[in-house]
């Protein structure tokens, strides 16, 4: 079930009505569980078996880990079992085809006759997200940061919570699960804020991301015929598309949860106002980057060892992050490039030196040249990496770079309304810069009710009036 649909609105309204009509913990969690499974099964009911299996296994393993003494071998076996199970699911559904094709291609190159084992494995929507969420539960229980719940209903409702089930934010058990272990109470201000956040998410996805995406699909879909200029613009537009698409989804998820009295973590904090690659990752897909930080980077040793060890740890984290995003070499390279950006910064950074420029939130409306210089550098570096993220293949990505670098002429391609898209991009960035101290621009509006309603109506209708001929699906659904 897509967020951008009347079906979702009907589901949310029904859940809202039932949820607040029976304000007991058990009833609320039951409503959420049924709604979540309906939401997920709307794509393909066969996926329900997988999520149910994954959840009940981690529920049982969580209890088993808790009942084993700390440091005991049995405890480690249970953690290992959970890891093997969750990563096994992820590996099979997401990476089987990738590794099988890569192995076959490699064997073919060295002259080994390898018959291709063809399995048409369907990627269950959101499997990367809820697998990581389940794993966070196991890790937190193992570390003693969380007492596992004995209530299966609470646990199933936590894992499958529909607003964030298929594309995050990837919540930590220690933050989200306790919210399901008590009855939620309706809060007027939270509900209003939730509606505003959903509207902003809709604007970002349906109006902005889909428009940028339409241009990007045209130029990246026919790289040999697009000019260098069109590809450069297409790359910037893709940067805006992927940002609006994913952060729009996160806003709708967080807004929906707020309507139900559940608080989800912020997932994006104006990433294109970052002044360094490190700052970018503090602002982009925050729930994933902090997940990797807490459950991979820190256990590897983080920055506690030598500088070489720190760099190696950074590289491993971003390599895996790239692979998490997609089972293709383009994503692996994308991750590695980000790893190298952070490593290069780590190498030139003086330990303990204070930041040379203030953060975007602390900058005045007209920032300093130093700030702008860093912002532009980060923006360009991030957009360069997006080429690999978006390109259909490695060859395509290299061709995009070559055509941009040589400013290659196009062959008659006329992509869709670049002028209009540039205006949209400037409007978005201007609005976000103006209200960067808030979670999103609509959270800052304090106008009288009629004016606010007029603004909301204009934004809502803009989604219709300015929608492109073909909308795109959420990019992160593929992960």
């Amino acid at each position, binding site marked *: *079930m*897509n967020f*951008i*649909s*009347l*079906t979702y*609105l*009907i589901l949310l309204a029904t859940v809202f009505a039932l949820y*607040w009509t029976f304000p007991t913990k058990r009833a609320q969690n039951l409503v959420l569980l049924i709604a979540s499974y309906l939401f997920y099964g709307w794509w393909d009911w066969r996926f329900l078996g997988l999520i149910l299996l994954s959840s009940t296994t981690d529920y049982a393993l969580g209890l088993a880990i808790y009942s084993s003494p700390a440091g005991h071998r049995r405890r480690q076996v249970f953690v290992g079992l959970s890891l093997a199970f969750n990563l096994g699911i992820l590996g099979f559904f997401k990476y089987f085809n990738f590794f099988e094709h890569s192995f076959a291609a490699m064997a073919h190159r060295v002259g080994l006759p390898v018959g291709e084992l063809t399995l048409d494995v369907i990627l269950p929507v959101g499997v990367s997200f809820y697998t990581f969420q389940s794993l966070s539960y196991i890790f937190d229980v193992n570390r003693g940061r969380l007492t596992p719940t004995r209530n299966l209903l609470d646990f199933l409702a936590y894992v499958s919570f529909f607003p964030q089930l298929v594309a995050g934010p990837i919540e930590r058990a220690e933050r989200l699960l306790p919210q399901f272990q008590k009855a939620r109470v*309706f809060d*007027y201000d939270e*509900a*209003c804020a939730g*509606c505003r956040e959903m509207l902003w998410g809709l604007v970002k996805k*349906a109006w902005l991301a889909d428009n940028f995406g339409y241009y990007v699909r045209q130029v990246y879909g026919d790289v040999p015929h697009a000019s260098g200029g069109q590809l450069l613009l297409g790359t910037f537009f893709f940067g805006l598309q992927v940002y609006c698409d994913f952060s729009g989804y996160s806003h709708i998820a967080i807004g929906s949860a707020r309507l139900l009295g559940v608080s989800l973590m912020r997932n994006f904090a104006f990433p294109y106002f970052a002044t360094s690659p490190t700052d970018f990752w503090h602002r982009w897909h925050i729930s994933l980057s902090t997940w990797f930080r807490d459950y991979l980077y820190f256990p590897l040793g983080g920055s506690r060892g030598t500088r070489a060890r720190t760099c190696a740890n950074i590289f491993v984290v971003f390599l895996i992050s790239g692979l998490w995003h997609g089972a293709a070499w383009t994503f692996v390279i994308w991750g590695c490039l980000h790893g190298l950006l952070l490593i290069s910064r780590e190498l030139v950074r003086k330990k303990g030196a204070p930041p040379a420029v203030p953060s975007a939130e602390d900058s005045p409306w007209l920032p300093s040249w130093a700030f702008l210089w860093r912002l532009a550098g980060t923006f360009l570096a991030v957009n360069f990496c997006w080429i690999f993220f978006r390109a259909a293949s490695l060859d395509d990505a290299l061709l995009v770079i070559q055509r941009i670098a040589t400013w290659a002429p196009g062959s008659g391609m006329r992509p869709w309304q670049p002028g209009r898209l540039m205006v949209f991009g400037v409007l978005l960035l201007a609005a976000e810069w103006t209200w960067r101290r808030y979670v999103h621009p609509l959270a800052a509006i304090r106008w009288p*009710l009629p004016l606010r*309603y007029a603004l*909301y*109506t204009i934004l*809502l*209708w803009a*989604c*219709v*009036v300015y*929608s492109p*001929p073909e*909308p795109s699906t959420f990019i992160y659904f593929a992960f």
Partner: protein
Amino acid sequence: MRRFLLKLGLFLAIQIAGVAWYESTVWSGNNQGYMDALQDKAALLARADEPGRVILVGGSNTAWGLNAVDLGHALGRPVVNTGLHAALGLDVMLDFPAAYLRPGDLVVLSLEYEHYQYDTRHDETIWTSAPSFRGLPVRPVTLQPVYIADHFLQYVAAARDHAVNLNKTHQRQEEGEFTRGAFDGRGDMIGHYGKPPLAPAEGFAFDFHAPAPVFLGQIIARLNGFAAAAKARGAQVYLCFPPLPGQKFALYHAQLAALDATLRARLNFPVLNDPGDLLLAHDDCYNTVYHLTRPGIDKRDAALAEKLQGVLPPRPAP
């Protein structure tokens, strides 16, 4: 909670009022579009004073490729052309005339080759013509409530495109094509009669690949189901292949022969012709392989009339 619901209700009421205004003034304002011809075809099918009708069923190959008036003269029977657009999908194409069948009717099913190759039911271009289906006994899948709810924003955007296209429609009215007024009283598209072809017949796109057996099996079951329902109403069904330009037929004749053989073996009703019975010449196609110029239509009418002469049952008394 009450305060929240009141404010949310007020906001939603404003939006619904806006949609209602848009719906009543802009979107529904034009009922002269191409798809609105469905209303005329429904009225024609509902007429009770025409016993022993020949009903032509199909997509635009039927609307633009046959002339019911001339066929009627040749057969001495009332002929109704229900063809309109392949993107309506097979279900609508069959269910629409099925609702009006009467004893003594003879149905000629002329399906575009695309229907045997892939699912034609999910064409969202139909959204721009949603009002054309008002009051009709059928609705395409893409206009059913659950589908619209799942794709609501795109649906509303299609309404926007419909409004934008109104001006273009008015321009086209002057040209005489793609409008309700371009059909004659028996459901034939005549707006392009007398116009030269836009390209030689060989220049229009056409692909035919052997359909997946499972999918073809589903289509055959669907067609057999339609024939059984027609029989229950006292009507007979015949399948007819639309003609193709000679060059296109030559490219795919093996696949088309296989399709013909499969259909003859598994359909529970007769097939009138072979795909290669009539091949179109250089100037017979107007703007697709299925939309014919007047000379092309005359050829197809003559070939079909000859086949039908041999199978027409006696005309029932009025």
